[in-house]
């Protein structure tokens, strides 16, 4: 094939993707397509975090194979055979990264085949030896995913709620079985175990007026009754409920949104674009965040299904106020810890480490779901708001938030230290 033709093959898909002219945007846009499929398939927060981890890992390891000095391999996958080591020009390298992301997503996600056309198109622009490399890395990634415990989950017993007012009961309107009670068995990337950062136990259930628990309960009860528009707006902004069920008579349907993990992956994308990062640097940012979120949800779920704590709406309606409803729809899993608090706090640690502590950004991730834009002065501010939003939403007690922040922060810091050599030099300006 002539050079001209080869160049055309290389440039054409790049031109297609140059709807997003900036390289960071190309990566972010590609990941957004994965996110869109996850949303359509209705993916739980924990499952979403796992998908993000493996798709961004495959992308990054492809990058690493092509530029090992700048982007060292994590070592989660077996060492590549020497025959597969290769180099590539920028364009090919970038496309190979996206190809690996999409191939992994296509295999893992239920509706992953929707990525076929884009995937096939981009593959055509990549020389076959690089395609082989991508294929190898993808397969290794899928092997690890296939042996991380996920495939054994449905062998484990389904959940039976414990009896007693202190314990989680299914919540309306659908009273669904709780999501992934055995998620603690999923293999971690960073944590030595799901229980490495076990928080304090939840405040013990006690309806006596003035008791610590009663105060927590009253707080949620009252805050929702205030009907404060600003607080309600914050709650809705950080709702991140993948499947909100609406019921009208016999009609029932679900309204879909991104998960908490998806929201923070979106924020990472905003920062990468804002900083005009290269595609490799974007890939690096995303995988660091995704691996952290992956483990954060494992740790959070480990505690949820250790304490089996009741949700505010169940306890409030049983004892205080028969017609009380939360602002948000209570998600279908136990209360303690707050997933958003854990995930957001961990994410803020990682993104701060990359982009800096006072990094302002405008968060537009929720616009497509009918929610407004919100601006933040830092990741920390956003994470704190995300955490407290769960109290405003009436779906969490404050201790689940506070301890969630504690756990998430620990996990984020662990990521920063354990993976320190994988982080870029702190840099807010143009990056190579």
């Amino acid at each position, binding site marked *: 094939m002539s050079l001209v033709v080869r160049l055309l093959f290389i440039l054409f898909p790049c031109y297609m993707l140059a709807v997003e002219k900036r390289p960071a945007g190309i990566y972010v846009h590609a990941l957004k397509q994965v996110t869109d499929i996850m949303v*359509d*398939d209705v993916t739980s927060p924990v499952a979403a975090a796992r998908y993000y981890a493996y798709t961004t890992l495959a992308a990054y390891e492809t990058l690493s194979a092509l530029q090992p000095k700048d982007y060292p391999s994590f070592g989660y996958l077996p060492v590549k055979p020497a025959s597969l080591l290769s180099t590539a020009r920028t364009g090919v390298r970038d496309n190979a990264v996206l190809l690996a992301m999409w191939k992994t997503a296509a295999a893992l*996600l239920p509706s992953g085949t929707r990525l076929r056309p884009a995937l096939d198109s981009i593959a055509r622009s990549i020389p076959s030896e690089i395609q082989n490399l991508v294929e190898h890395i993808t397969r290794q990634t899928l092997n690890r995913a296939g042996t991380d415990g996920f495939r054994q989950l*449905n062998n484990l017993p*389904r959940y039976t709620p414990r009896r007693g007012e202190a314990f989680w009961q299914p919540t309306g309107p659908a009273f669904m079985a709780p999501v992934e009670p055995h998620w603690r068995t999923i293999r971690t990337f960073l944590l030595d175990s799901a229980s490495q950062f076990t928080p304090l136990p939840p405040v013990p259930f006690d309806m006596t007026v003035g008791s610590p628990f009663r105060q927590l309960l009253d707080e949620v009860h009252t805050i929702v009754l205030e009907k404060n528009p600003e607080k309600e707006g914050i709650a809705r902004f950080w709702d991140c409920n993948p499947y909100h069920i609406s019921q009208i008579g*016999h009609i029932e349907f679900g309204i879909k949104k991104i998960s908490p993990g998806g929201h923070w992956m979106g924020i990472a994308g905003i920062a990468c674009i804002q900083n005009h990062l290269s595609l490799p640097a974007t890939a690096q940012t995303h995988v660091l965040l995704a691996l952290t979120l992956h483990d954060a949800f494992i740790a959070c779920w480990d505690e949820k299904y250790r304490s089996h704590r009741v949700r505010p709406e169940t306890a409030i309606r049983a004892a205080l106020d028969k017609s009380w409803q939360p602002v948000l729809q209570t998600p279908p899993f136990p209360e303690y810890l707050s997933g958003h608090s854990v995930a957001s706090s961990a994410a803020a640690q990682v993104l701060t480490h990359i982009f800096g502590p006072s990094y302002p950004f405008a968060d537009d991730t929720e616009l497509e779901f009918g929610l407004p834009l919100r601006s933040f002065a830092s990741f920390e501010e956003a994470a704190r708001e995300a955490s407290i939003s769960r109290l405003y939403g009436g779906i969490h007690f404050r201790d689940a938030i506070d301890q969630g922040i504690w756990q998430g922060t620990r996990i984020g810091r662990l990521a920063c230290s354990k993976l320190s050599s994988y982080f870029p030099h702190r840099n807010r300006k143009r990056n190579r």
Partner: protein
Amino acid sequence: MFRQLFQGLLFAPTLGFVVPQDSKPVEDPLFEAVTSGQTGITFANQLPETPDLNIITYEYFYNGGGVGAGDFNNDGLVDLYFSANTHPGRLYLNRGNFQFEDITDKAGLHHFSGWTTGVSLADVNGDGWLDIYLCRSGNHPPEKRRNLLFLNNGNLTFTEKAASLGLADAGYSTMASFFDMDRDGDLDAYVLNHNVKQFRNFDAAYVKNQIDPDAGDHLYENRSGIFHDITREAGIRSNPLGYGLGLNISDINSDGWPDIYVSNDYVEEDYLYLNKQDGSFREVLKEQLPHISNFSMGLDIADINNDGLQDIFTLDMLPRDNERQKLLYAPDNFELYNNMVENGFHHQLMRNMLHLNNGNGTFSEIGQLAGIADTDWSWAALFADFNNDGAKDLFVTNGYGRDMINRDFMKFYANARLKHLQGDTDSKMFSMLQSIRSTPLQNYLFENQGNLHFKDQTIAWGLGGADFAHGAAYADLDNDGDLDLVFNRMNAQAGIYRNRSVETGKTGNYLRFYLSSHTANTQALGTSIKVFTPDGIRIFEKQSVHGFQSSMVLPVHAGLPDLTPDSIHVTWPDGKMTRLTEDIRRRQTITLHHQDAQVPFLKEAPPQATLFRPVPDTLRYLHREMMVNDFKVQPLIPNMVSYHGPESAIGDINGDGLDDLYLCGPEGQPGALFLQNRSGKFIPSQQPLLAADAAYEDAYAEFFDADGDNDLDLYVVSGGYGAPDSGLPLQDRLYFNRGGLFSPADQGTLPNLAFSGSVAVPWDYDKDGDLDVFVGARVEQGRYPYAPESVLLANDGKGSFTVAWKQPLGMVTHALLLDVDGDGNQELAVCGEWSSLLFFAYREGSLRDISSSVFPKPLYGWWNTLHAADLDGDGDTDLIGGNWGTNSSIRVSEKEPMELFYDDFDRNGYPDPILCAYIEGVSYPFPTRDEMTDQMVGLRKKFVTYDSYARMTLPGILSPEEVQASPRLQVNTLETLWFENQEGIFQPRSLPVEVNFAPIHAVLSGDFDNDGVCDVLLAGNAEQTRIRIGRSDANYGCLLKGMGSKRVFTCVPPLASGLAIQGAVRSLKKIEGTGGKWQIIAGVNNRAALLLIPQHQRP
């Protein structure tokens, strides 16, 4: 993918006028449609959807209208009124010969608005002219919702007078019924209301105790022509959760006073109000009906089996075909189900329910057995004898405006569509709504074939075609002696169907009763007529409300068999009777007047003393189950293994000549030993060493002399089910009898038997003088349907056992010994779940499988129990096999068996048991898409949508190769059968249909009625099941009277047997006492044990 989804779910943007699709012409149908061209009936219930008024703004938008059939001008011809929702209805005067004249405007019935629902006809003011009461609902202010009473002025004009009579009920009304509640000669009224608000997250106890004046039902007492609200005093429920859609009045408990059945949509349970005869009612549904339909809509009450007792049939929304079921069903949610039960909403299952009245305050639900449980989204049910053969047939209307219950709509379509639409939420919702598919459905017409079976004759009887049909009525419109059909359609002309019995010469037999009363209840509503024919009795009630939102005030049409009636008993509403005993001819019209009634009401003589009487609980044993859920361990298995106890063992422990009793204990509860004293009472025996073994789940127990010291020792089989690592102890236990105290044998006395077992049969198979033991294996923990090997233990003569033989026999449930060939040696019979009966003989030094020679045609069933006895009195031993029964949505046969494929399809170390059953000729997997993908996650890629899964067979879901290669089990009969021993070969024989009402787990034979012939008692039920299968609880103790050499059993009705055993019976044993007396002990799961004594044994 979504583009295809959109196209699949799109239909016309507006719910336009639908021409009902006709079916292909049928040869000589019973009914034929009569066109509006001939009848002049052009009425159609027009339902234009607008942004302000649609299914989203008003949840009952698609409920349709009603039909009123009655004679408004007393000319002997039945006229018709049709109610519409968004516009006034129409009144058609019958001019004869199926020609009608629209007299709505002349009659003054054209000038009201609002949302009209049900039409109730009655002579409300007792002036001899039929009035029209219209119910109204909708999102309107009270003034526009008040029900309307159009009093007949006697000249085919009507005047609205609801307010002045006190009947302008402002609730959201569905229907009303006029009936003489207090037997004082005037008509009272029950108004059925529903709520228009949503109730999703609420405190059940709190809301159930509230009174909602607009959503709650009302009862009005007629005092001198004015109606007074007596709802509270009368004990009528009126809470906000009442979404009342169905109403019937009938004398359900045969005491001469009218009772009320209300069916409620959504979460609130139905109500059964029994008349207390003092102006109030007692609500008893939860006591008498063990389970009910969930989204109950229309209903009808009639005697469908001609036993003189009124049966109840309620409608729900279960589709008949696999595809629609798979698009509709939500996965089983046990927490939600149990929550509903605990909150007082009772056991509700989504299918039609046929509650057969047992006459003793219990009902047996047999809709599935009868074949009428699944008629899709159904509205009206009407029982009437359409072919005049003496059995009441069934007509069901159905149809729902748009397919929004479709799970793809819920999970994908709604969100996708809403995201793409512009505008505010309400207009977006309306646009989305308009693009949802609308599927007209075929109604159903069933022929009652007797023996509790209904045959779908819809097409053959000319009712094919698809539409959206709601309220319906039957009436003899042309006075030719057969009943015609009329029904109200949404967006289409009303259906008028002429019954062609007369035209086709198949007139059949009937009597037609014109009733009138001198009281204000001029039409004598509430009259009950009993017709005696040589083959039995048939009862007919004159009630005005049947089905859905519709009523009929007609002469009583009594379809009869082709026999001349002997006599007729007419019981008028006040209890007086008229008896006709002479000169009754076939196809006669009989006119009767209330004032000619001769005698006061005589309650029928109670039946002779029953055969059994229960003994008050003198046996202090309450079986307490740990409420486990086997489906949490293996979500796809069809049945739970748990809840199999308590079994019992009988034997004389202390040598005093009286049988003693051991009742098996479930996990966490010790087994209990009782010693019988001379007065037939059972005294608990303190057995600390038995109590120490409470952690075991006793599956079975037997007394036998294990150590050869001439007393009875106790062998207990440990069983149960759980996850592989559950820690449930499974080793069997042998307790030696040491002077009445049982102590466990030392370790090593028994070999390793740590598997879940089900039965132990002491058997001296090798005839060496000591008792060996066969132990049947039940299941491998967490790996159903794999089962451990069953074993034969050889006794060394001193009570020490070793394994002499072992073989995998599948999931054994029971076994026993019997002499198959009459040679004096005993053989072993074994039954199991997913097995055929197996037989083993010990011959020439080894145990041989003789099944194929003794039981040549394998019958694979869900066998629970075997019983051996000489049932036909010919000297050899016959068998009974207790099976699941045929009261099941799954129908099996040799050609269309139920199958279980259980390979580890997803290669993650555990079997994936997939149940497949035939529906309409094709074998489909039982699990829904969500249940399947929950078990095998990889399938989520293959079946993203419910639609992609809905039509799939198992080879399509997995692959033909995988299915072919998979281990497989089958069931080709679910019938409980007896097996006649004919010279050593067992021939299957059927039993009365009542035996198949529920799973049979325990069988006992004996001469219970002291007539010298062997009778049989069968009991069982299954209370813990998959929700979609539903609890099977229609058996209250089925007694079969033996006929000896005639080899036919007849079922003894409950009123005669005296049996009303509640719960899941797991064992029946006969216990001998002093002086030849005996009792029956019934072990009932999670309840107190029961003792039964035959009546002929006076205490």
